């Protein structure tokens, strides 16, 4: 064993998603490191690592809570910076839902590529490695000059579908053209049919007209997407699928951001269920929305941390969900 192996995993949790951190820590059989994180009266964030991280392999788990994205991001940067100054050997930022992932291109004149900015900020703060789940666009990996492990929720979704439905009754539906690849991949694994909804989107978070491509008649239509934000798209898509004769409609989404009136929209929709992973802290949303179900993604993340630390391949996780 090299000296590389002598150091230990230090798991540091940001304030945004302590439940996920606890689950990952439990899975790894270690404790979350003691830290002090607080806001001054002028809302500046202050952070102190409560135990030595010198020469340790540090993993910082920080999701971004809906509505508090900047708060979470700044805290993450400050934690990284604190660990860097405290002589950590390697700092891995575990960011289950990458913030600003949708602002990844200059789609209008002078539009900021905020995702690249975030990537640069993380590296400037001192991150040596990034672990994330279902990046909105895989190209974001190219914004970094450090390694990025983009984990997939797909294996967990596949297992969920196999456990709860007969794949032959299902049709996998992508709510937009951009997500077609993700949906076809699941359909291929399940060997089921595939459909696509084409939509016109005049402005962000506003949904225009929708057209279904493919057949969903008398089938369970499963919408697949990477994030559910205001849920406008999903709900409209579900209505279109119902109109086209789907037996029932459910949605499998990695990041349940669920901002604005998402919960009310969902409760009043014809979606029978929305299944999300716990990459984003959901708070009381599960109680408020009986249609919301959660798949635990922590085994995948914990396994990625273990493999990264031990220098093993992470590829296995792209096709298998650890039990």
């Amino acid at each position, binding site marked *: 064993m090299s000296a590389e192996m002598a150091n230990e995993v230090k798991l540091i949790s940001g304030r945004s998603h302590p439940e996920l951190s606890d689950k990952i820590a439990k899975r790894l059989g270690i404790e979350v490191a003691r830290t002090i994180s607080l806001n001054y*009266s002028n809302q500046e964030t202050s952070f*102190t690592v409560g135990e030595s991280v010198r020469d340790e392999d540090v993993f910082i788990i920080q999701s971004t809570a809906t509505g508090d*994205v900047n708060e979470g991001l700044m805290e993450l940067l400050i934690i990284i*910076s604190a660990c860097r*100054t405290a002589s950590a050997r390697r700092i891995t930022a575990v960011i289950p839902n990458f*913030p600003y992932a949708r602002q990844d291109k200059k789609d209008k004149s002078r539009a900021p590529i*905020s995702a690249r900015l975030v990537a640069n*900020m993380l590296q*400037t703060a001192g991150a040596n490695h990034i672990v994330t789940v279902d990046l909105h666009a895989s190209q974001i990996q190219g914004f970094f000059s450090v390694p990025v492990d983009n984990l997939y929720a797909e294996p967990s979704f596949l297992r969920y579908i196999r456990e709860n439905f007969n794949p032959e009754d299902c049709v996998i539906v992508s709510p937009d053209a951009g997500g077609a690849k993700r949906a076809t991949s699941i359909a291929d694994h399940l060997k089921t049919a595939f459909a696509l909804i084409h939509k016109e989107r005049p402005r962000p978070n506003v949904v225009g007209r929708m057209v279904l491509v493919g057949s969903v008649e008398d089938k369970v239509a499963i919408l697949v997407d990477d994030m559910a*934000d205001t849920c406008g798209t999903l709900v409209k898509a579900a209505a279109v699928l119902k109109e086209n004769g789907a037996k029932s409609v459910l949605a499998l989404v990695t990041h349940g951001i669920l901002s604005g009136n998402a919960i009310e929209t969902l409760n009043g929709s014809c979606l029978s269920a929305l299944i999300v992973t716990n990459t984003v802290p959901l708070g009381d949303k599960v109680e408020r929305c009986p249609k919301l179900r959660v798949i635990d993604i922590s085994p995948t993340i914990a396994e990625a941390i273990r493999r990264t630390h031990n220098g093993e391949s992470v590829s296995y996780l792209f096709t298998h969900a650890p039990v």
Partner: protein
Amino acid sequence: MRGTLIFAGSSCPALTGKICENLGMAPADAELSQFSNGETSVRILTSVREKDVFVVQSGSPKINDTIMELLIMISACKGGSANKITAVLPYFPYSRQSKKKSHRGAITARMLANLLGVAGVKHVITVDLHASQMQGFFKCPVDNLHAEPLIARWIRQNVPNWREAVVVSKNAGGTKRVTSLADALKLNFGMVTTDKKRGSNMTASMIMNHLDGIERQPLLDTLSNQVRNNSSGPENGVSAADSGQARTSQPVTDSQASPRRANGLPQRTSNNSRSPLARAPVASSQASAIDELDEAEQDGAEYNDQRAHEVTHGRLVQGHIVPDDFPSPAMSAADASMTEEDPMTMSHASSFFAPTPHALGGSGDAESSDDEEPFLKNPKIEHMITLVGDVKNRTVFIVDDMIDKPGSWIAAAETVVKRGYAKKVYCIATHAVFGADCLEQMQACDCIDAIVVTNSYPIREDKARNASKLVILDLSFLLAEAIRRNHYGESISPLFQHILD
């Protein structure tokens, strides 16, 4: 100005408007909003290609959102092929986190400097950085403007009898800022320090060791002299009268320690036995001051009139000065007997030991004014508050770089009024951060007569309207001038000079 665009961040549209007014131009168009998930959205609505771009952003109650917005605006301008992007930050966020205060704490200010660089900033303009060493965090040039000339001018024009006033620092770390203003106005200065009541079984060598570790500042230098002086006597047998003598005969600031101030004031030589800290500018009050001193000395040990001493102590419970017969709270009861032993060693030495974060901080120069606050409010702990310098019947300017929490300001104001018998108290700071109900508490404090701040940090209008003591000085001319001079490549040095009028 041709080829220049000034963008306003959402924190300070009013200040940016004034800056632009000064420059005779309109702020550039940008749409700033948030997506429903809380991510910041920026749209630059005008061409920035090959322009000289200035982005003005101050602090706000949602400081992290403000920072992200600034970074995204800069990034968007950079992506839009701007020629040069300058960040104008009247209040530099996270400037108090400019050093490792605890083990494994973050130097967030340095990180922020790096983040600005990464976003695409080529130049930074800011006002009164909490620690001027922070300029070294940047790879790009930093113009750290000073509000002091503005404040000094305001004092000269608005404070009656300002020539008789005393400038007071409310903590040891801010002394340098205070001496600078005192020098500019040619005023006396004083200092208030707060520390926990604690046992004083420390020896002189311990104290010297610690003082040696501290960067020699004029005041500290002479304080260490005093300690040496005091401890050369019998260990505990120094009577009150003796120690009073020792204090007054030892100048707290000698000419070597403060050469600039010694020069233009010849009357000092006639008054050498008295400390220059309390030297009176006119002959008549000199005489009265000496009378007072004599009185005190005649009364000897049992007459404990603290007015005559250079060093005044007060008891601070729950952030307020209490009378000497106030019942002692539980925690200080144990060491109450210790407090009587050797007041000099106690007050000064222990203020260098505490609060603990000092230990890593190096020079006390960048000392956070907040460091003392967490234990100030603890009802169980009694503090010793010490006033160095004579403020009797004078106007007092308590000066620091920012007002965030009210505790130390109110404690200092009460000390100079109730213990030092000051006539009027002005609280003066550049950055009016006013966390929580700070402004309301300071407004309610009877010992504070005015709060003088600048508009570097946006102050909520409804708050300002209810605070009759609040005076807001306008920084926009200073910033506008810095922008103009930067654009045309002129020197900004004149902006640091005091305007004498």
